[in-house]
């Protein structure tokens, strides 16, 4: 479906570069999501739309509330207020496992490979609607064997695609960090999601594997899936995302295509502080030097009195 995907991403050219901009074909729409932890407002997002069939990056400095926002959208945490819908279905108060079943599957920042299960068992677990997962039918293998076989074949195809086919029968716990990221992504695809949400897919991955991972994320879009990911790696953001949403201190401060967002003064300020590139005036310089000298003198005086 290459025609569809280009449409999904290219349709963003006419979208305004401002927070909360409406998209032509949104798959995920959120309104007024607020989450506070005691006195701290971790997330306070007014309105966001995620374009179907595009790769959207969610970036922001540490503590901006990106992962919390992810948790809220996927039902792993409940917001204080807010409403959001996925593909037209209201997701407010829906438990995490039902969110996943509806086609919105996430991965985790700290990879959650199921260590003492083999790679293949990890994959099989991802398949939905398994009749053998009901307690009564589980005991009678003929009732689920055919489905298991089909799932295994699908898993093998995915493992080949993610270059994990040599590891099929090994414990997931014996994989390297990067391989676990690959496994987690492949496992999420077993659910056959429409929207894949990746929480820092590049964290802890070596540069060689990074390129492969980038390719895999792009291929999700080519397969007609929508991708929303949190990332710190700016190269990755620039390289693969069609649209970037920037969060800082719980709020969305900017939206737009990667080049535009990285030139945005609000974004630069959020990452580097508001006054980082003001030139120092002579008065400022003198004041700073005087202050430093005073501190040194005070320190010496203290030392002498001892």
């Amino acid at each position: 479906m290459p025609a569809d995907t280009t449409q999904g991403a290219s349709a963003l050219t006419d979208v305004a570069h401002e927070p909360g901009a409406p998209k032509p074909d949104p798959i995920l729409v959120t309104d007024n999501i607020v989450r506070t932890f005691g006195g701290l407002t971790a997330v306070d997002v007014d309105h966001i739309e995620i374009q179907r069939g595009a790769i959207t990056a969610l970036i922001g400095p540490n503590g901006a509330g990106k992962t919390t926002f992810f948790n809220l959208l996927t039902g792993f945490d409940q917001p204080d207020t807010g409403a959001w819908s996925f593909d037209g279905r209201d997701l407010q108060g829906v438990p995490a496992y039902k969110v996943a079943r509806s086609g919105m599957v996430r991965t985790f920042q700290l990879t959650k490979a199921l260590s003492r299960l083999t790679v293949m068992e990890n994959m099989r677990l991802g398949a939905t609607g398994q009749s053998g997962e009901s307690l009564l039918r589980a005991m009678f293998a003929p009732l689920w064997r055919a489905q298991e076989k089909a799932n295994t074949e699908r898993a093998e195809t995915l493992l080949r695609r993610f270059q994990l086919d040599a590891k099929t029968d090994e414990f997931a716990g014996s994989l390297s960090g990067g391989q676990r990221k690959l496994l987690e992504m492949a496992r999420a695809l077993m659910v056959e999601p429409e929207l894949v949400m990746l929480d820092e897919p590049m964290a802890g991955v070596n540069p060689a594997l990074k390129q492969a991972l980038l390719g895999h994320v792009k291929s999700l879009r080519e397969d007609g899936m929508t991708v929303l990911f949190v990332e710190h790696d700016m190269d990755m953001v620039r390289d693969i995302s069609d649209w970037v949403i920037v969060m800082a201190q719980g709020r969305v401060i900017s939206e737009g295509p990667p080049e535009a967002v990285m030139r945005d003064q609000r974004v630069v300020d959020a990452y580097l502080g508001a006054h980082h590139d003001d030139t120092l005036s002579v008065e400022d310089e003198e004041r700073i030097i005087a202050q430093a000298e005073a501190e040194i003198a005070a320190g010496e005086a203290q030392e002498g009195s001892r």
Partner: protein
Amino acid sequence: MNWDAILANSLQAALGPEAIVYCLAAIGLNVHFGYTGLLNFGQAGFMAVGAYGLAATVVTFGLSFWLGLAVGIAATVVLALLLGIPTLRLRADYLAIVTIAAAEIVRQLLGSQSMRDVFGGKDGRQGFTDTFRALSPLSGEVDLGIVRFSPFDAWVTLVGWSLVALSCVVVWLLMRSPWGRVLKAIREDEDAVRSLGKNVYGYKMQSLILGGIFGCLAGFILSVSRSSVVPDNFMTDLTFFAYTVLLLGGAARVLGPVVGAILFWLLISVLGNFFGQATAGPDPLIPPWIMDQNQSSLVRFIALGLALMLLMIFRPQGIFGDKRELAINAR
């Protein structure tokens, strides 16, 4: 030193009703802890509920033995729901605290004065095994060479080991299925399982009920083999010994609890008989200034503890466990 007697007594213990009770209890804990990662420290509570369900139905209400079995299982399911509904959404350690407390509450309640009319207080209930005795096809002593069982014990043992075999088959069938895979995945990381669209809470509840029912079967065998139930049969150490049996055999292995139970009772009995004999008579093998006859029955537990420590140091995965699995950091 009479080694023949030691061997005979020990085999008797390793194959007898006591070992069966611990084996069934450990099979339940294997479902809870070994496969699902649920820390149930209240297996004694499930056993008590099963045993008393049977005894009270027959003795207090004069109903049939078979109905008693059904009541015991139903009561176990209710207990599992009561424990699970508030705690299974929380972290694993909460379940541990709640179950250990619940087992004690159950025991105190069953032995309480105010419920004496139903459960018989501290004296418990006797005389509910007539139907079971009448079913026995065995008459006369059963002699298996070195091991010898009374007709009733042989009948209990036969039924007991059949139950163990049946339970093992059920566990094996379930754990190779996709259902068992979900349980094992929950043991590894329940958030990951949730993110793949599985109702983790529902699966944990099913696991708690299923393992509880195995505990209930253990309670049946315990009460029937002794032809009585008293609250003090269901102290917390029962649960801890069942855990020992499980870890000895190897957790998350179908036959782990079976091998564990046999070995545990073999060990306890060999040590008990050995120290008993070594301290008996006018000129004992072990001089009285080291230990006397009374102390010898306690020393076997010390030696057992030592043996378990050595096992955990040199074979931490248990008899059947896979060292490769243990080497993997669980998280």
